[in-house]
């Protein structure tokens, strides 16, 4: 067991991947000498060289498009997109090419490209640096989307993403990059399956489903609820595509109430998908409608008001109160 931050855990996970997998390579803007704008790739170019830690031109479509070509040649590129809001110049390559290459080739071609995207708000940044576009990608068949919330998951999930033969987008909760935790670098343990949700806290009155940056918020909300006598179960979804509905369903069958919280806008978001599925799967177990907590239907607001935008402990507790009132 070693204590490290999420950023360091991803760095170590990438180091392990580059060491163990000679076909893996990293690509992105400023990931070499600078070590990435968040220093997630710090020191890797010194150890693995510029052919494996590739500082690319400033061109997201070019990064992802050339990564697709490298993967067709048998390489396993890990692309870094500098910030969430800058992925859109590469959106075409991700959704029309990367996601569909295996399908349109009738299974003859695989494109195991990994795309790392620091996402989410709460860092006081400016426009295009705080967005949560995961639902836009989850809607596209052919992609897998995961998001770690702690260093142990971060260490293993990046390696599992590279090992996966499907394209994987790893949304990294940037405001948690400096969150410390214990990492077992010898064995993934419960993190062996990156597409399985984790029940982080057991409870009986309601289930709160969250992922990525909101996991600590939900845990704190559950703690506060406990002081008021409410037993709240907290699930870290970990995988946004596919979603581990079995774990969520089992929880709701126990608690009877479900709250889904994410930073992305509520409308058309992952929360709506979970609400719909759970109403199909566990309608008779539900004591209350599924309640969503998320961002508003607006472009991510300016940093000075982002605290009003981002779901916090109180917003989750307010949703819990509404669910318990039924």
């Amino acid at each position, binding site marked *: 067991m070693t204590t490290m931050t999420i950023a360091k855990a991803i760095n170590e996970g990438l180091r392990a991947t580059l060491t163990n997998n*000679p076909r893996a*390579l990293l690509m992105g803007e400023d990931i070499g000498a600078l070590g990435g704008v968040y220093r997630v790739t710090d020191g890797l170019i010194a150890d693995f060289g510029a*052919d494996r830690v590739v500082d*690319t*031109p400033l*061109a997201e*479509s*070019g990064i*992802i*498009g*050339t*990564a*697709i*070509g*490298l*993967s*067709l*040649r*048998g*390489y396993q*590129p890990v692309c870094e997109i500098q910030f969430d809001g800058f992925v859109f*110049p590469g959106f*075409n*390559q991700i959704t*029309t*090419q990367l996601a*569909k290459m*295996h*399908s*349109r*080739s*009738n*299974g*003859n*071609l*695989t494109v*195991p490209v990994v795309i790392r995207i620091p996402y989410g708000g709460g860092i006081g940044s400016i426009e295009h640096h705080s967005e949560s576009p995961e639902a836009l990608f989850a809607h596209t*068949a*052919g992609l*897998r989307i995961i998001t770690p919330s702690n260093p142990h998951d971060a260490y293993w999930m990046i390696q599992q993403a590279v090992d*996966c*033969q*499907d394209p994987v987008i790893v949304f990294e909760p940037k405001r948690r990059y400096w969150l410390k935790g214990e990492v077992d670098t010898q064995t993934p343990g419960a993190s062996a399956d990156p*597409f399985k949700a984790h029940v982080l806290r057991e409870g009986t009155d309601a289930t709160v489903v969250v992922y990525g940056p909101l996991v600590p918020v939900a845990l704190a909300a559950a703690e506060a609820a406990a002081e008021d006598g409410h037993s709240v179960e907290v699930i870290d979804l970990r995988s946004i*595509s*596919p*979603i*581990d*509905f*079995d774990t969520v369903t089992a929880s709701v069958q126990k608690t009877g109430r479900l709250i889904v919280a994410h930073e992305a806008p509520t409308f058309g978001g992952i929360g709506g998908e979970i609400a719909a599925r759970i109403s199909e799967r566990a309608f008779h177990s539900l004591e209350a409608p599924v309640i969503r907590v998320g961002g508003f239907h607006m472009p991510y607001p300016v940093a000075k008001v982002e605290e009003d935008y981002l779901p916090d402990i109180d917003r989750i507790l307010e949703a819990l109160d509404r669910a318990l009132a039924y």
Partner: protein
Amino acid sequence: MGATHLPSTEFDGTDMDDQLEAEAEAQLGAPPEPMVQLLGPDGSLGSDPVFSKYAEKLDPDALRGFYADMAKIRRFDVEATALQRQGQLALWVPLTGQEAAQIGSGRASQPQDYIFPTYREHGVALTRNVDLAELLRQFRGVSNGGWNPKDTNFHLYTLVLAAQTPHAVGYAMGIQRDQKLAAANAVDGGEPGQPEEPKAAVMVYFGDGASSEGDVHESMVFASSYQAPVVFFCQNNHWAISVPSSVQTRIPLANRAKGYGFPGIRVDGNDVIAVHAVTEWALEQAREGNGPVLIEAFTYRVGAHTTADDPTKYRGSDEESLWRAKDPLDRLEKYLRAEGLADDAFFEQVRADGDELAAYVRKTTHDLETPDIRTAFANTYVEAHPLVAEELAWFEEYSAGFADEETPAPAPATEARSAAAEPEITEAAN
């Protein structure tokens, strides 16, 4: 400056885009690169200080082969167009007029090279030994691909314009890394007695319309930055559906390469000998580690963009007539006959071979089987996926509900992965 001030491709009998080139020279102060031409429209062979030596390597068999390929693919094009008109294909993308650009360049590639086409490269497919009937799968709506690119190193068609250009550069970057790894292994001792892998390059096709897409720019930046072994082959057929090439560019497209720092060559795209020579040179450059090359094949799409298009709405028949006078097949036939390299019997045989191919394509198109949607379930992901499994299970159960009706549920496709299907439900569907 609005579009009305841009030079037109409606030329007046002078060379195709003299006007464009003159404007470029006037505005940029630099003369455009001359267009490489070896075989003129009259069938006479000219010379070029760089490329004639490549033409000299072509023996009579190779030249007759060029003609046979061009004639074959034109016949195929006619047949596919007819099949579309008869409702057998949803759409067809004709290539007539561009045979020399495609056969000349495709024949310059080596088996170890990897080719990324757009969607009109039927002639290139022929040179890569792709079964032409397989090209029709996509247009008949039974596949989004149709062939295994690994068999021929000829990638699937790409309908999103220019999206394949960065793929080509990435693939070329992979070749670079493979060569470095091979060299490192050789230094380490490697495996004695192993023949050295032939050096490979990548060639990527796109059109004058696609040249406006950002992906072309980004891929050229990447190719130049890493000196990737890639040849960009732009077929300037003058029309992006209804928009003329003058709206895509104010200078000859080949001249853009200078801005990226690699050679750009404009070649007469209706001259199969020159196209072959230029492409052979460019691929050699790439394979030998000298970086990318842009080739602009100056040609003309004689027919419609696709069978859904009506070129009479946006261009005059006089333009088409002028280009027909530059026909790539006619000029090679003139040369072959004048030099005594081919006789009536040869041309008769070529015609017969074309008819045979057309009959084969017609029959195989009719015989193309409609796939089972279970293959789509199976191929969405490589690894097992719970949502796909859940939806497939639902589909099987739903299909089984029709089992007693006259039309039986389709049999499960053999490709459908067992990991994604519940065995008892699959059985029920039978």
